[in-house]
């Protein structure tokens, strides 16, 4: 029974295809098999996004000691749908000077990337749309499209604030991509695979990488970099309202604006999902609940943490942001690769000790080298 529930979506898909197979030739079945996955992802992603907006508003509301949306539907559950209707019916304003084509293309392109990367996330046992043997790399590669699209939007708007936001996003994403990729390298090193499914397989039975010394820190770095990659607080400089209006999407309204939002939320979801896949054991969990439930639960918790960040943390300054990536994350992740290699090389108790020592050393060194130079107390010669 538990097995059936675990595989319920897979079984449903197979039954459906079997039914089709009675009347249709093989090659159409093959196509349909692919198309079903795509369709499901395309259908699920906007729903996920809509309810993430609801969740965010609700949780932020609770953090700020208010109710959040509560008028449309019970607990305001229909609020996202109302928002959607509002967005769709709003006037679509395009600046006169804007580069029309690119201004239109930018929001379209920007949602493509997060939708594409969903394909390599294993949502549950056997529930992966495309088990590429370079899945992880695919995820990282495709997500860089976001930068380009964002840049297209900011450039095409012909607006200073947009451009500034675009520049900031560009610098930030480039900077944080490096420690993000480097923090993933130890996982690849230990599992010797780029396939997301294989990575989850390697963690089955509570051997989640977050429980290893290197994995714990790598997960932390990865998660924080992920937060920066999707431009969420406290790394939301590209759209800092108090500084540059709304950053790269200043000149967007209506559904195009909604698409930017959608991209952001789906990215958030995808990054959380990848963090779960890489470090939190993916869909692994006690068998009394289905695997996809565990995946959803873990992802949900990570998303909650991000919302929690947004509710509590102030925004970084630009130099702090860059310094954080280049002075703290980058050296640490580089060292972490060696630490993970030690873990893979040595037998159990030794590798634990070696890793602990290694991480202590690198953290101490970072502490020393990043020590803030406190300016000397000023001496006043003629004033007191």
């Amino acid at each position, binding site marked *: 029974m538990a097995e059936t529930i675990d595989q319920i979506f897979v079984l449903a898909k197979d039954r459906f295809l079997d039914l089709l197979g009675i009347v249709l030739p093989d*090659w159409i079945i093959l196509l349909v098999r692919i198309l079903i996955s795509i369709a499901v992802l395309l259908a699920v992603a906007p729903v996920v996004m809509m309810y993430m907006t609801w969740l965010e508003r609700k949780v932020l509301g609770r953090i700020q000691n208010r109710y959040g949306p509560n008028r449309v539907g019970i607990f305001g559950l229909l609020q996202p749908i109302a928002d959607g209707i509002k967005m769709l019916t709003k006037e679509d304003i395009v600046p006169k000077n804007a*580069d029309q084509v690119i201004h239109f293309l930018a929001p379209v392109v920007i949602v493509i990337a997060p939708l594409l990367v969903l394909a390599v996330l294993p949502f549950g046992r056997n529930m992966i749309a495309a088990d590429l043997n370079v899945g992880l*790399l695919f995820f990282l*590669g495709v997500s*860089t499209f976001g930068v380009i699209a964002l840049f297209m939007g900011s450039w095409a708007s012909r607006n200073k604030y947009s451009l500034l936001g675009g520049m900031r996003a560009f610098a930030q994403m480039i900077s944080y991509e490096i420690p993000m990729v480097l923090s993933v390298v130890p996982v690849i090193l230990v599992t*010797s695979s780029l396939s997301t499914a294989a990575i989850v397989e390697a963690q089955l039975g509570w051997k989640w990488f977050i429980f290893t010394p290197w994995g714990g820190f790598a997960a932390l770095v990865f998660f924080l970099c992920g937060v920066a990659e999707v431009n969420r607080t406290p790394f939301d400089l590209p759209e800092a309202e108090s500084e540059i209006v709304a950053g790269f999407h200043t000149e967007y309204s209506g559904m195009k604006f909604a698409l930017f939002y959608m991209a952001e939320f789906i990215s958030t979801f995808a990054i959380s999902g990848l963090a779960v896949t890489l470090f939190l054991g993916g869909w692994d969990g006690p068998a009394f609940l289905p695997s996809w439930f565990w995946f959803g639960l873990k992802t949900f918790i990570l998303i909650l943490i991000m919302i929690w960040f947004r509710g509590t943390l102030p925004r970084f300054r630009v130099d702090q942001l860059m310094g954080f990536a280049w002075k703290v994350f980058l050296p640490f992740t580089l060292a972490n690769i060696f630490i993970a290699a030690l873990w893979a090389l040595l037998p159990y108790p030794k590798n634990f000790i070696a890793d602990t020592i290694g991480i202590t050393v690198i953290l101490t060194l970072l502490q020393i080298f990043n020590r803030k130079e406190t300016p000397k107390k000023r001496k006043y010669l003629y004033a007191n």
Partner: protein
Amino acid sequence: MEILYFFAKTGFYATALVTLAAAILVVTLRNLFHCALALILSLLGVAVTYLYLKAEFLAIIQILLYIGAIMTLLIFAIMLTHRLTDRSVSQTNRQSLPAFALLAVFNIFFIASLAAVPWKINSASLAAKIDTQALGAFLMGPYVFPFEIISIVLIIALVGAVILGRTDQ
């Protein structure tokens, strides 16, 4: 099943056409930013071509490095060297016509000579599956020396770029 292969082959030619069209846009468009976007499209087409050659790893690397790194750099440079409302004059110089003529002749000769070459197709290689692990083993095995050299070159380029880019002296 045959029909799927047919679709796939058609896909290749379509990709090639899109790639070439995008490439032509790259060299003809007036707005440099549009050029860059067309170049991204063209590079994507090349990545797909790699997939047809069963080089998935390279396809992803192409996206990650060319589009994720080189093109972003290029666009950044465009942003820094152009005004927002840059109505630029002609983007091509006076030698476009001789260049076109020469290249046309060049292509004709090349295609003519290509047709005459009897390629010895190695079917074992054609069918071989190259996974990322094998590539890694090659990079760390027989090609470790060039691999190290290329990393040094990369570091030098990095340092050089930083030195060239600094303005305070």
